[in-house]
């Protein structure tokens, strides 16, 4: 069993830079992921946290909760979970976006975050949890590109 570090982060955009810096440092300190995989993790975790912050910001201010970022560290892989209580997502809405490889996709201004997370991580899981969503990202030392 590896180490676990958990952060409660205010659901505000100005904390996003801080979160990705901390999670990047955690992965650098507690795993043997190469630099390029750490870069992938940095971007994918930002995407997950941005979605979580957006979900919380759709609620009235008094009901907003911190997002929770959990890092599970093993020698050769890192799992990062990002949880919000923002009301969940609509899988049908996700499916309606054109695939990222289709030309029509290029002119969509939103919805690039999940395809990015899928490309950057070894495994991406979105699941309903509590009143919201948990995104689970797994990164191994394997270089994907």
């Amino acid at each position, binding site marked *: 069993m590896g180490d676990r570090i958990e952060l409660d982060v205010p659901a505000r955009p100005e904390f*996003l830079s801080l979160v990705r810096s901390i999670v990047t440092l955690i992965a650098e300190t507690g795993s043997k992921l190469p630099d390029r995989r750490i*870069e992938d993790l940095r*971007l994918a975790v930002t995407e997950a946290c*941005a979605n979580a912050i957006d979900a919380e910001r759709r609620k009235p201010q008094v009901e907003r909760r911190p997002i929770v970022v959990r890092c599970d560290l093993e020698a050769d892989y890192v799992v990062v979970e990002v949880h919000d209580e923002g009301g969940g997502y609509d899988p049908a809405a996700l499916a309606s976006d054109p695939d990222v490889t289709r030309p029509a*996709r290029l002119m969509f*201004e939103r919805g*690039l*975050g999940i395809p*990015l997370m899928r490309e950057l991580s070894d495994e991406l899981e979105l699941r309903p949890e509590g009143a919201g969503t948990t995104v689970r990202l797994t990164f191994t030392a394997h270089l994907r590109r």
Partner: protein
Amino acid sequence: MDLGLFVREEDDWTVLAVSGEIDIATAPSLREKLHGLLADGRLHLVIDLDEVTFLDSTALGVLVGVLKRARTEGGELRIVCNQPRVRKVFEITRLDSAFDLCTSVEDAVKGGAQD
């Protein structure tokens, strides 16, 4: 963290040099600046991303929106991007084929899509 946004003119182009990290916290100021330039009639834009240290999908969304508007109004948008970590974000999302990605501001104002 603030985003650096510096505007200058080169030939018939307006060059916006961006520095810092672009994410949901800073993308609104980039969007506001670019749409402000378009509203001023500066329809030939070069966005220099060489001093950008981080860029996420929110930033791409802003750039796609500006590209669409510039083209609709008869303008052009070119992007200078040499940093591998920034360029990779365009490549993963296949947006490298939607934008004119250039290796320098000089190339961008001369002809674009040099690589």
